């Protein structure tokens, strides 16, 4: 693949890196990434991936942009309040980088559609704000052997982990089952500092770039824990759990379940 002059100029600062170069840039331009959620995490993830020239970015979200989103969901703008989030994001991302293709999925992920959607992508990034989606994405990725970048935020805390199915621990190795309904508030109830979402989202974007480029050490088997009040990061080793219900030796989860039924955490849609 030969880079055009405007591409050389656009990506020069990363091509210069010994780990990237023209070959790395070509990998990025060939890369296909699916982002679940165009919210607090999805915003920085999608912006950095688009800027770096990741060739195809899919975004799944069924919500519309609300005024209260703008405090952290930086991919959207005031003018787009009321518009579908995926359309708003697509507008911004293609404006940022004309080189890339943005595919929007204005829908809620479910056991029925998720396997079809992720099929086309090299890696999936979970930027969702609720446990049902998180478990659905984990199981879907493990079952279809798709790498997944997990990220989660709550008030001033954040965490991220990269899951390489078959190789490293999955989300269920860490937390086999979702918490009982009612115990854990969803993000809407929790409140969040926008920058915390930024930190974790950027870490996820960085994981994706490293994965596509094949460089560095991924957060595979390591859970990164961030505390914004202390400004501290630490990583916790996570081993594959042989009793993991989805990736263990005797898995009990062998097909996707509609998690919403037993979690029923989200009290209202949107």
């Amino acid at each position, binding site marked *: 693949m030969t*880079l055009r002059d405007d591409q*050389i100029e656009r990506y020069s600062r990363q091509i*210069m890196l010994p780990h990237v170069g*023209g070959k790395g840039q070509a990998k990025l331009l060939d890369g296909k990434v699916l982002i679940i959620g165009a919210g607090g995490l999805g915003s920085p993830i999608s912006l950095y991936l688009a800027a770096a020239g990741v060739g195809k970015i899919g975004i799944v979200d069924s919500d519309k942009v609300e005024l209260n989103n703008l405090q952290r969901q930086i991919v959207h703008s005031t003018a787009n309040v009321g518009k579908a989030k995926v359309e708003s994001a697509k507008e911004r991302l293609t404006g940022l980088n004309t080189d890339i293709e943005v595919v929007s999925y204005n829908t809620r992920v479910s056991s029925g559609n998720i396997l079809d959607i992720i099929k086309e992508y090299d890696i999936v990034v979970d930027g969702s704000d609720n446990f049902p989606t998180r478990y659905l994405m984990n199981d879907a990725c493990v079952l279809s052997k798709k790498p997944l970048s997990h990220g989660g935020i709550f008030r001033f805390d954040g965490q991220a982990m990269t899951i390489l199915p078959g190789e490293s621990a999955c989300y269920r190795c860490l937390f086999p089952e979702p918490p009982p309904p009612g115990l854990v508030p969803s993000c809407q109830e929790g409140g969040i500092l926008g920058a915390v979402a930024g930190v974790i989202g950027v870490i996820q974007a960085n994981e994706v770039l490293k994965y596509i480029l094949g460089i560095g050490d991924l957060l595979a088997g390591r859970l990164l824990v961030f505390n914004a009040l202390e400004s501290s990061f630490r990583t916790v080793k996570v081993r594959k759990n042989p009793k993991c219900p989805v990736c263990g030796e005797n898995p009990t989860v062998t097909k996707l379940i509609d998690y919403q039924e037993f979690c029923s955490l989200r009290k209202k849609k949107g």
Partner: protein
Amino acid sequence: MFQLPGEVKKDIEKYKRSLEEFKSKKISSARFKGIRVPWGIYSHRGGKVFMSRIRIPAGLLLPSQLRALAEAAGKFAKSRLHLTTRQDIQLHDVKLEETINVIEYLKQYNLCPRGGGGNTVRNVIACHLSGICADEAFDVRDSALALTEYLLRQDTSFNLPRKFKISFSGCGKDCAGALLNDVGFVARKKDEKVGYKVFAAGGMGADSRVGKLLSEFIPKEDAGYCAAAVKSIYYKKGNRRDKHHNRLRFLAEEMGFAKFKELYENEFKELKESEHIRLRKINFIEKKGKDACLPLEGDKEYKEFLKSNVRPQKQKGFSSVEIRIPRGDINTEDLSAVADLERDFPGIEFRTTQRQNFLIVWVGNQDVRELFLRLKKIWNNFLYPDTLLDVVVCKGALTCNLGLCNSPALAEAIEGMVRDKFIGKEVFTGLEIKLNGCPNSCGQQPVGKLSFFGLVKRVDGRAVPFYKFFVGGRKEGESTRLAKEVGILPARNVPDFLHAFLDKAEVSIRKYKDVYAFLEKEAGEIATKLLEGYSYVPSYSENKDFYIDWGKTEEFSLAGLGPGECGAGVLDMIQADLTEGKLALQDAGTTGYRPESIKKALFLSARSLLIVKGEDPKTEKEAFSKFKEKFIKSGVADDTFSDVYEVFSGINDKLGEKGRKEKFDYAKRFFEEVERLYKSMDSSLNFPSTHTPKKESKENKLLDLKGTPCPINYVKTKLVLENLDSGDILEVILDEGEPMDNVPKSLKADGHRILKIEKLDDTHFKVVVKKK
């Protein structure tokens, strides 16, 4: 002004770490010596305190720098400083743990002892009148400073076969001694072009030589190529094994100067093609004066001062004032006072001279009398620089490990005699005295008009300090001559002998057209005759004074005399490791194969030779992996030792006797292999290698990046290189300026090789790159 390169600043951390390691006994004193000496840090006699030699490029000092030196000496040493004949300033009596503080403190003022000693590029000297002298062809200061900056950036400048000295003179009078340096530049104009006449392979020392003409003319901007070419030949071919024959002058002599010159010309050409050595342009501020006249009225002393210390600058209305610093010794208080003069005479600057004096420049003529009065408050003996009273002398046995005689005390005695008897006489301004405590040449005695060096003779079963007397040395461009030996006399008699000699000289000298004619035709004869009466040493019972050196009360002895540190270098460090390694093996052999000793022997063996490859491993693992990389993979060492780290890691207390014995035998074989390699190393520190470079055949690709700015030019080059095979050649055309300054450097940093740099026209260069 001079900027201390970032590379040197970064290296300070390394020195700091080594000092820590030495203090916590992680490295031996021999090894640490090999590290500190190239940092200009020498042990005083006795080894308890140290001297830190700060390089003063071209001898140029701002008032703030002078003050910083005074402060550093006050804070971290016992406040004694010394001006050297290479325009450096030494801090004496520095405790070892303070050496790092000196370095870190002075760094802020662009001052540093890096390369102050050891086998390094030493201080680049220049005429002390550069830029202010009416006779100069042009100002050489920028060449001297920028070349220093360039050379200090290169690691190779600190690992040469022996020291390497460079000088710059502004005209044929050659105040800096071009023929007494490894490379000497003399400014000249040729068809309105400015450039240098270059001499090489001169040098003073135990076996002094006058340099020879290397090049009739090189353009000024090529000075960097020229110095780099000579340095490169010396680096590659200089003798590193024979400590007595490792200076450039011996290399040139052994191969013959014609051959040396030919090598130089090839190297110069190659460098012109492959390197882009652009010396930084340094602008000096030209001051504007009032064009006033010198105030002439004053007492007799002031009138003497005007005559002996003050010289007009070529810039109207300004004068330079040379202050004689007897024996180059100065304390913190006086140095601060000198620096403080700037508060009352704003705009003045300072310089060190090769006569160990200070020069104050940019003194407005109207201020000269006031300056004189201020100087009087600091000293009363600064008159008469560059006269018979201005004895040039090394530090001698006082602090130097090599010093035989206490030369500074003798200098003081001579000064007393001269002050009493000879001020104002013909010989007073015509002659000079240079003095050294041993046969080395820190006191520059090989080119003294009258000169001495110290030696020891046994009389009556006792050691007696002696001096050898020389006449007729001359430091002046192509007229440079080495002084001729006359004879020897006991130290005690030197002042009286000189007195008698000068009396006779005063009469004879008038017969000749100049002092050199006198020195050549008659001085030797007069001295030889006189010496007969002064060479006798009475028996110990008759006169004990002869057995006591100047400035001492106890009898002369060589106690404390030790090997010189100046050449401490890689060989000493290798030797130290091998000796320690051998001891560890012996220990293992006698203690039932103690695991710790076997491990130590393996580690020291692996580490010892790495220093030659520029590696200084921090950990054991690194030492073994580097050994593997540098010696086993390159086919130099036996590959049966590929598993040395695994063997090393497998040594522990749980091994039975048989297991320990196996490891011991392995360690012994490994040690012997390393010893074999050490012996096979040639005098340029290369090991016999079996590798042959691959031939190039493909047609070169061309990438035209005219007008492409940074960093896009680098990115584009990188993109093309990515698609080539290792060893392929790419030619890149780059603009001069930022692109040329950056792109080749970055490509090198990526591991590619720059084969050639060719100037296409005024604004474009072609760079030939070989892919790694």
